[in-house]
């Protein structure tokens, strides 16, 4: 029933200017559902299906989507915290998925992770100094007093007082803990950091501080970010390019400017229009999707978005053909069979999106 069209682009999933720092090709992750006698695998959940993209050095690639769309799994697969089922991940010319044991552990210092939950991501039984120092110890980057000095300078770099090193996580606020998490990642001097919703658990006033910190660090250290988020406001602020995922697949990918102004996929449009705008005067012709996202254990056939899709041309083909990720415009990839290349404004409730772009900043 599925007319499988290869959705693997031939190349150039980045901005094409330079060789990408990280290149993901055909990444898939299937989680087994266990049950029955002997705990055998009785089913599976396709958390990530055939995901490909490039990340160039120094850029911030944002992966957005709602919870359950596979964005976190994608991040964890790149880090090898979850073993992908298929695909390849090349980092700086090294095939990450072929690494084993000590080589893998050594490689890990180049790719780090900052977590969403600042409460759960710190070991409550370790002082934050020890937490930050752990990476130094593991990779033997510094020892003894040198390590302590490094820890202190790292803490200051992320905006924590050096004398707090002996305190435990529960003595800190969420924002401070997230700074510890960042310091821990920075300690091993990575080139690449996966930021897994680093600010979504934080209060607004603190969120801005952390965003600024992340930006400063990127600038000062030349870091490359894979920024996983569901808050499009933050994404728009931080990202150079954006990947939109739905039910384990990439449905759209473009530079931030293009994506936020000319989204092609109905889903992306809905996502953008769903964001409540902090402006009581903004016009509200919102696209409200029907129903809930389907379960990844039982995804719809064809285009995974078709049951909720409001595209005027939606037809039976959408329920059968898995749409390939095609370059619809320059650097603008999308997976929709009803949207020929080169067109974008097909039925867009443009006002909603435009208003977003032009919202007047209050109190200035």
């Amino acid at each position, binding site marked *: 029933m599925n007319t499988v069209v290869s959705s693997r682009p031939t190349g150039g999933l980045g901005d094409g200017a330079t060789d990408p720092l990280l290149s993901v090709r055909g990444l898939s992750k299937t989680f087994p*559902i266990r*049950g029955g006698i002997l705990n055998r695998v009785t089913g599976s959940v396709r958390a990530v299906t055939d995901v490909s993209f490039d990340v160039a050095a120094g850029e911030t690639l944002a992966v957005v989507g709602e919870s359950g769309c596979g964005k976190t799994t994608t991040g964890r697969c790149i880090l090898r915290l979850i073993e992908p089922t298929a695909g390849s991940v090349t980092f700086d010319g090294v095939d990450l998925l072929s690494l084993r044991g000590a080589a893998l552990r050594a490689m890990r210092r180049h790719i780090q992770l900052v977590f969403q939950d600042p409460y759960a991501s710190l070991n409550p039984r370790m002082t934050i100094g020890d937490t930050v120092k752990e990476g130094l110890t593991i990779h033997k980057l510094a020892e003894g007093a040198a390590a302590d000095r490094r820890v202190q300078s790292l803490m200051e770099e992320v905006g924590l007082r050096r004398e707090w090193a002996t305190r435990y996580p529960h003595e800190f606020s969420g924002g401070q803990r997230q700074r510890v998490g960042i310091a821990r990642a920075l300690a091993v001097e990575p080139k690449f950091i996966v930021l897994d919703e680093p600010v979504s658990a934080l209060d607004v006033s603190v969120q801005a501080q952390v965003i600024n910190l992340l930006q400063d660090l990127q600038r000062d250290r030349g870091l490359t970010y894979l920024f996983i988020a569901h808050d499009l406001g933050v994404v728009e602020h931080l990202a150079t390019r954006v990947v939109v995922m739905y039910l384990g697949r990439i449905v759209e990918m473009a530079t931030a400017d293009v994506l936020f102004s000319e989204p092609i996929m109905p889903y992306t449009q809905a996502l953008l229009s769903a964001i409540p705008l902090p402006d009581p005067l903004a016009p509200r012709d919102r696209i409200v999707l029907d129903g809930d996202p389907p379960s990844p254990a039982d995804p719809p056939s064809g285009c995974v978005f078709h049951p909720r899709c409001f595209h005027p041309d939606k037809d039976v083909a959408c329920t059968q053909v898995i749409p390939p990720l095609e370059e619809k415009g320059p650097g603008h990839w999308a997976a929709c069979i009803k949207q020929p290349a080169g067109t974008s404004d097909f039925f867009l409730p443009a006002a909603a999106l435009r208003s977003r772009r032009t919202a007047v900043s209050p109190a200035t």
Partner: protein
Amino acid sequence: MHALIQRIWHGFVVIALVATATFVLVRLAPGDPFAAALENARLTPALREQWRAAYGLDGSIGTQFAHWIASLARGDLGFSTSTNQPVSRAIAAALPNTLLLIGTSIVIAFMLGIWLGAVQAAGRGGIVDRCIGAITLIGNAVPDFWLALVMLLAGSYWLRLFPVGGVADLLLPLGASWPVLLLDRARHLVLPVLTMVILLVAPIARLQRTALLDRLGAEWVRTATAKGVARRTVFRRHAWRTALGPVVTMGGIALPSLFGGAVFIERVFAWPGMGRLAAEAVAARDYHLVVGCVLVGTVMVVIGSMLADHVSAWLDPRLTQDGFEPGRGLA
């Protein structure tokens, strides 16, 4: 459905492991099934060897185990050399008595423990809470056999209220009417059940208290209050009912120790049940009976814990869910 089949399979594996281990353990113990009764019987080792052969107890452990498994497959648990009957018959006589004892004790202990725990939770931190906690704990801290003996002496000897052990007055005429028989059975049950209840009630009350306090702090309890439901109803319907789950689960887990406690209580109260049967079989090196008892006991434990899981699943429908769990490593 899958979950049930898996539970049954797990139970089967557990039973098989226990049976094998017991079989080996009992047979490695020094002693002889026909030597334990009397030390100076003129039953020479040669004669004993002959008897062992007659009852299929000779040969290596491996061959014996193979024989045993083969007969087990035919539904035959072997012959009990200490009670001169098929193991199945010996167990069939003992099992109902133990089930009666343990069943009655569990029911009473759970009713009492759940009630006490509720009283404690309702008056949390108060004098009643502390007193109940202390008293039940003391009951729990006393050695089983000591409590049983004191109960026996107090109830049967000093107060002369209850018979000295046994399941029934054996001299009652066979044709006695059922109310008489029932009353007689109840009189015999009182002391052993009371002993077991005292030993059992503390952990139940404690768990119920903790679970209730936990549930009372749950958000759905606040939701119920916000709906306008009366305090008592909230307590009963929303907190108490949901707090039963862990207590029931504990009941399943506690079963082995109940059978263990039965070893003491059945001995003191001359209760012809599984605990006593097994302990006496161990002393008599009645291999087949020991293995049979442990096997049946384990089956009971497995069934009991499955039952407990079923009841707690019924109490908490979340537990019936199987298969895919969202949020397990998924974005």
